[in-house]
């Protein structure tokens, strides 16, 4: 308790801490948002709750790390991971997801959970359970008294890439034929089929796109933090929290929720201790659900 009070005291005693926490939080939040964005897509279009979301992220990280080890410039790892993870996502769709998509919720949850375990173990067998990271030879910018705020340029680049990718996907969804088909399928798959949209193709595309987005996020994460075959769950949990909080089909909402959770988690870690960081994410989810429930109490709805 004393520790918590003194931690809160620090926030007021040194106001600059708040800025530092916010910056750190927004940076990690941007990557959470990216993974969550892919999840919202798959959830909204295919009604598949992909528990392997985090493992796609880690997988993308390993792709980038492996290619960097072969001599590819680290920044090129992001597009490379995007392309390779697209392929892996497509294979996963054809082999696993396409078989469970029409089934009930639990079948798809179980299938993606199995996929998550498989991916983690395969990565472990291939690359070992060591933590890996790519060390970028960029300087770190320092601001404030005693260089209190540090902004590694690598992180900045990572966040910019995340932003570019998110904007790219949003424009793609709005403008392109495929984007329109995806949105049509999401609204009503049967109607879309009647109108001549090949929904099977749309599903495969959506799942691959999700996997590719996750892969790019992973490639950024390996440049600025660490990855390990079993870290996927961290990103999966955050993705679910964010999508649940923001709602499906609400892309700006997903991004805002991602950034918000990143920042709130950092605050929570500062005040209650870093051991509770993940607990705070889940607590936020609970809070959001309770608020939603109260908001919708008066709405008439039927169970499907």
């Amino acid at each position, binding site marked *: 308790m004393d*520790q918590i009070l003194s*931690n809160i005291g*620090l926030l007021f005693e*040194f106001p600059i*801490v708040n800025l*530092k*926490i916010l910056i*750190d939080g927004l940076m*990690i939040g941007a990557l959470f948002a990216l993974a969550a964005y892919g999840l919202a897509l798959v959830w909204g279009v295919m009604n598949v709750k992909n528990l392997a979301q985090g493992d796609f992220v880690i997988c993308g990280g390993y792709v980038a790390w492996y290619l960097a080890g072969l001599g590819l410039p680290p920044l090129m790892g992001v597009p490379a991971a995007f392309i390779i993870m697209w392929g892996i996502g497509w294979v996963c769709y054809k082999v696993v997801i396409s078989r469970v998509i029409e089934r009930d919720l639990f079948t798809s949850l179980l299938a993606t959970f199995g996929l998550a375990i498989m991916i983690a*173990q395969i990565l*472990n*067998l*291939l*690359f*070992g*359970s*060591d*933590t890996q*990271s790519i*060390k970028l030879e960029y300087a*770190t910018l*320092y601001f404030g008294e*005693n*260089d*209190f705020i*540090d902004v*590694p340029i690598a992180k900045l680049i990572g966040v910019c890439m995340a932003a570019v990718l998110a904007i790219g996907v949003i424009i793609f969804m709005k403008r392109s034929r495929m984007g329109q088909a995806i949105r049509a399928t999401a609204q009503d798959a049967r109607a879309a089929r009647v109108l001549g949209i090949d929904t099977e193709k749309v599903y495969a595309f959506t799942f691959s796109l999700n996997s590719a987005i996750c892969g790019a996020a992973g490639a950024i*994460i390996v440049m600025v*933090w*660490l*990855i*390990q075959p*079993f*870290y996927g*769950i*961290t990103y999966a949990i955050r993705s679910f929290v964010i999508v649940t909080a923001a709602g499906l089909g609400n892309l700006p909402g997903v991004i805002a929720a991602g950034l918000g959770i990143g920042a709130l988690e*950092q605050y929570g*870690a*500062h005040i209650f*201790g*870093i*051991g509770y*960081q*993940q607990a705070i994410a889940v607590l936020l989810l609970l809070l959001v659900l309770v608020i939603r429930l109260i908001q919708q109490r008066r709405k008439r709805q039927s169970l499907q």
Partner: protein
Amino acid sequence: MKILSAITACLSGSVLLFSGAAFSADEAKQINGCEALTLGAAISLTGKYATNGIHAKNGYEFAISKISEAGGINIGDKCYNFDVIYYDDESKGDRGATLAERLINQDKVQYMLGPYSSGLTKAIAPVTEKYQIPMVEAEGASRSLFNKGYKYLFAVLSTSEQYLASAVALAAEKAEEAGKDASSVKIAVAVENDPFSLDIRAGVLEDAKKFGMKAVIDEKLPRDLSDMSAILTKVKLLKPDLLIVSGHSKGAATAVRQIGEMKINVPMIALTHCEAADVTGKFGDTANDILCSTQWAESLSYEDALFGTASNYEQEFKATFSDYDGKKVPYQSAQATAAVYVFKDAFERAGTTDKEAVREALTATDLQTFYGPIKFSEAGNNIAKPMVLRQIQDGEYNVVAPSAFASHKVNWPREAQ
């Protein structure tokens, strides 16, 4: 390449399975002209402890081949060679306990080698105890293993509360040299929430209390840690004199990376698992002047008849396993080798393969090895060997404490790199 080795590992695993079945029909399996003496081991070959699990397995294998080359184990007038049945415990405690039962009940194993990590050892020890199977373990250092009254558990390594306790003494010494009181030293502790790391914390806080030092930060790291900037921000604000971080390889890697990025300027930083995380290779100069605790270092002057000196052990180990080229042989491997050596010694002194007689012989162990002296207390932990503190100086690990073994002077205070 990795894929290939993974496939061959799978294949050879299944071949072993078949050959094992074939041999169980025979009376006694022969290895290198001597009768096989079967040991069992559940060890982490997959899961989060896989890296260190494999280090330990390599250590076991190296010892077994060395013993075999040197003519095996002489019990009475017969010679024996060790043969180990390995199972993968997937770094999970419940799996480890199940596999231990299987080794004992189905494979009829009479002696066990330990798994990797305190948590797994904690899961397996009650099983070996129940069936009265002697287990010599090399990778479970938590002191909570040695207050349960286990009679069949023997550990060759120093218990974990000793890991970083010497850093506290060193910080006190430096404070006094600088003309300050030892009690003015402020300590920041960040450890993972597992039995091993919590012991380290307990050891550090106990020693800090003796000096009257204050712990200004005392936090637990989550298991899937990839960002500890929240703690390091506090470190910047509260300016402790000693920062202790323990969270296996990932803790060491995360700490060193972010200490560099955030320009953390603490006069003394002490970690565990620096070698396993390869912090010098991954982060270069950032790792300089960080203190790392170790059970064993190849520069120490221990030696024995079978493995020669500590540095001799390292060379031969590297020659056997090409994976360690250009890296340090981790102490996890050395102590695993020592565990097998302890078994050999106990069998020879017992003069029989009766497990009770072997247990008696184990309790009387008093052995000088390349890994250090080994002598078990009533509780089964090794009380003869001290922990060593090394400092990374220009990319090299140099022993700086305790002073009896120190080859170099400690660099203090540490400058932000």
